[in-house]
């Protein structure tokens, strides 16, 4: 560095001119590919719903018969009402319970809460298919717990196959979704308001219900809409618990349509799909608005003052009771059910565990090439597939990072679309895409088709992960690079990317867990060669191979568990 007066170091010539014409190409390409991957499947579904036969059938014509048929089918309306009831019921259970648990964990001095917290989140990481199956095996009419309970008390007072029972189980298993948002919001509350209430004479429960929880109402509202929305998308749970008594919801109604008329009724399925999306898409938009509200609310209130825990006193027992009861019912019961079932040959009234113990179920799994292939594929799609997925999400993230133009807003809304389409339909749509577009055809029977469907379905989730990482990078670090002469591309590569490395690894782990537990998206894409554990479980369940289902479920849980353990070890934030 020399006194001014020496020659100024020249910047590379192209920097001095206005941006080069090729500067925008990577961004344009990213946006185009994303739009294609998202809109093509949905477009096909829409197109198919207005035909009278499968779209590849030469005899098809345009028409609204499909809609006419399903609107005239009483089963459709029953399914619709059931979906609504189920979604409402589970919201009414999950939100208060989740909020209360969040309060206990975040704001009180309950002993031992630190190591318990990951357990609360477990249901959100285990496949709903596996959980429902676990409940049947553990607490169904001839479940382990049912049988033991009957032996002691002469009968079990519960049944799983009714709509209220389904709502309870769905509510319990969705508590983590509420918990995550409620606890985040509670973290940023100062304790002064709670202490003031306590001094005025309120018990911890009253403090919770009259002070803390009302203060985080925006977050709770968002969580409520989220859970309600997830209720419409439920598939595994109603499949396992609803079918025995014929309780249909929209997703299982659609699944049933696969064969109801004897020959495939793609147009009917597409019509039902459009109806589902018509309900879920507004909910997604509503969610987005509520989330922005909740975030704004938190920043307006500002950072927390001191954060002191509320002493529970004799309420400790009630709180602990609530917590452990929840964990028992939602985590221990189903998982123990699966673990037990995986190690016995058969079960039922009059069968004892000791005499039925076996490793045969696992042998059956590993003997069968399709099952082994499913395990291998599932691992591959989670690890390598997950890494590539995170790379794609990062590329899209960069395309919208710190750019507030129309394209960024377009992408913002675009990624909401797959969120509104339940996995089941997305898989079906991708099947059609692969059938419809000849260049993609050879890829259909490879794991690529599954990977693509997964990546698109989870786009919104992944983008949130990436953007929260990107936002951690202070604007000034990037501006500093600009002032010394770095182009946007170089900044992304040399400044931003290295700084979000840890966040990317965390995202990869989360994506791994999501992919491992995925099941509905792969149902229609399942083909020899593309088996994954989740989709195969659905198919095996239909086929009644309970032993193999149990063993595979246990393997699935182990895989997710590995991911979860790694994430915890690396300190990855498990919340949004």
């Amino acid at each position, binding site marked *: 560095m020399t006194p001014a007066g020496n020659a100024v*170091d*020249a910047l590379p010539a192209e920097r001095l001119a206005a941006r080069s014409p090729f500067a925008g190409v990577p961004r344009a390409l990213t946006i185009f590919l994303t739009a294609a991957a998202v809109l093509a499947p949905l477009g096909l579904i829409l197109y198919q719903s207005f035909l009278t036969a499968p779209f590849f059938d030469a005899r098809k014509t345009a028409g609204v018969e499909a809609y006419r048929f399903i609107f005239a089918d009483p089963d459709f309306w029953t399914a619709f009402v059931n979906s609504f009831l189920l979604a409402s019921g589970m919201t009414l259970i999950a939100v208060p319970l989740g909020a209360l648990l969040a309060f206990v964990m975040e704001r009180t001095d309950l002993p031992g809460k630190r190591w318990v917290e990951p357990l609360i989140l477990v249901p959100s990481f285990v496949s709903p298919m596996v959980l429902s199956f676990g409940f049947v095996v553990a607490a169904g009419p001839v479940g382990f717990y049912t049988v033991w309970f009957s032996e002691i008390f002469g009968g079990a007072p519960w049944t799983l196959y009714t709509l209220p029972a389904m709502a309870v189980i769905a509510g319990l298993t969705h508590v983590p979704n509420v918990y995550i948002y409620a606890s985040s919001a509670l973290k940023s509350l100062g304790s002064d308001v709670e202490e003031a209430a306590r001094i005025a004479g309120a018990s911890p429960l009253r403090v919770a219900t009259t002070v803390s929880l009302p203060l985080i109402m925006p977050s709770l509202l968002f969580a409520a809409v989220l859970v309600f929305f997830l209720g419409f998308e439920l598939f595994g749970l109603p499949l396992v618990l609803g079918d025995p008594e014929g309780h249909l919801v929209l997703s299982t109604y659609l699944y049933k349509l696969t064969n109801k008329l004897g020959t495939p009724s793609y147009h009917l399925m597409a019509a039902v799909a459009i109806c589902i999306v018509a309900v879920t898409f507004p909910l997604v938009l509503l969610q987005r608005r509520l989330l922005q509200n909740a975030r704004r609310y938190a920043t307006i209130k500002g950072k927390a003052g001191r954060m002191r825990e509320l002493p529970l006193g004799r309420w400790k027992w009630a709180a602990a009771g609530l917590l452990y009861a929840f964990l028992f019912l939602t985590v221990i019961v189903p998982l123990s059910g699966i673990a037990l079932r995986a190690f016995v040959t058969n079960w039922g009234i009059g069968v004892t565990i000791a005499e039925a113990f076996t490793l045969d179920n696992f042998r059956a799994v590993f003997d069968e090439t399709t099952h082994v292939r499913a395990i291998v594929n599932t691992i591959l799609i989670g690890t390598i597939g997950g890494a590539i997925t995170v790379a794609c999400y990062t590329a899209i993230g960069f395309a919208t990072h710190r750019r507030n133009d129309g394209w960024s807003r377009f992408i913002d809304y675009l990624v909401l679309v797959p969120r509104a389409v339940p996995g089941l339909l997305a898989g079906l749509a991708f099947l059609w895409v692969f059938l419809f577009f000849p260049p993609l055809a050879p890829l259909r029977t490879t794991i690529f088709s599954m990977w693509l469907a997964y990546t698109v379905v989870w786009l919104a989730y992944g983008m949130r992960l990436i953007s929260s990482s990107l936002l951690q990078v202070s604007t*000034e670090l990037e501006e*500093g690079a600009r002032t010394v002469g770095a182009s946007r591309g170089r900044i992304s590569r040399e400044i931003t990317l290295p700084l979000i490395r840890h966040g990317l690894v965390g995202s990869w782990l989360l994506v791994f867990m999501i992919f491992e537990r995925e099941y509905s998206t792969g149902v229609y894409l399942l083909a020899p060669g593309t088996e994954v554990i989740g989709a195969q479980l659905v198919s095996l369940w239909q086929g009644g191979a309970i032993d193999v289902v149990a063993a595979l479920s246990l393997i699935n849980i182990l895989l997710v568990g590995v991911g979860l353990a790694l994430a915890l070890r690396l300190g990855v934030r498990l919340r949004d």
Partner: protein
Amino acid sequence: MAELTVEDLHLRYGDNPILKGVALTLERGQVVSLLGPSGSGKTTLLRAVAGLEVPHQGTIRIGDKVVFDGGRRLDIPAEGRNLGLVFQSYALWPHKTVADNVGYALKLRNVPAAEIKSRVATALGELSLGHLGARYPHQLSGGQQQRVALARALVYNPPVILLDEPLSNLDAKLREEARAWLRELIVRMQLSALCVTHDQAEALAMSDRILLLNNGRIEQQGTPEQMYGQPATLFTADFMGSNNRLDGRIGDVRDGTASIEGDGWRLRGAARPGAASGAKGTAMIRLERLRLADGPGDNRLQADLSTSMYLGDKWEHLFRLGETRLRAYGDRPLSAGAHWLELPAHDVWVFAAPE
């Protein structure tokens, strides 16, 4: 030719106008401070010069090269302006070593590696950071980080460096030392610097010229002495130092002086632009210019002592005259009761009262 020329710059955020027609020039070897309260637009102006904010009207020229022209819709982005910018928070890249932080700019300019190494070493040496090249930013003290930020901005010899509140992140004690050191560095290297600061003492100490911004416009500009000693507006007078203030009515105005009187007092002082006979006015005098007197006389008034505060190197006395409060310095305590105070005419400014 000026190193930096800004003309008629207008900038708004959405519907909100931030800069309402600002102009400045910066000659080589000059330090110009942009001074003003928060919200005055000074940081925005600096960032606009850097290319990080985009005005909608006006021109910006670096040397003879136009980097922004609202009329011709010309806007060279920040990465093309070749300026140095030192952020208030330093913005050192945490994943790069000190040497890499400083050398990055040279890497971007395709300077050969060996040369980068030597130039970085020189730069670090100039700022007494020679032994810290391999450290990471989080391992440095605040002062060291600031110097790295400076080295980073200077290593590629930009014609102008921009400094955003360079001293506000330092402890009060360090600030005074840093003030001196920074000025000395800039002068020695004959740099042309544009500084943003909210602290008028800092601006007075470091600059060759000061631009005082008020609500997006330049209230007054001049040398530090001019800004301090000859404020053209009440705002300027108020901002640049600590004052006593008496509100009253302006009497006659002649020969550049004006008389002003209020409840129990009458003064004569320098008439500032806008002071009109018969209008409401405000008289201002610096705290340190108010003297204790021994008796009545011209430009003197009597006030009651409210309280005295011991400041270590002097006493500060608070007086009350009706509704008006006056402060003065002294070197000894005073007895309670009424005292005579002198406000020398050449130290008093008479302004028209603000609307």
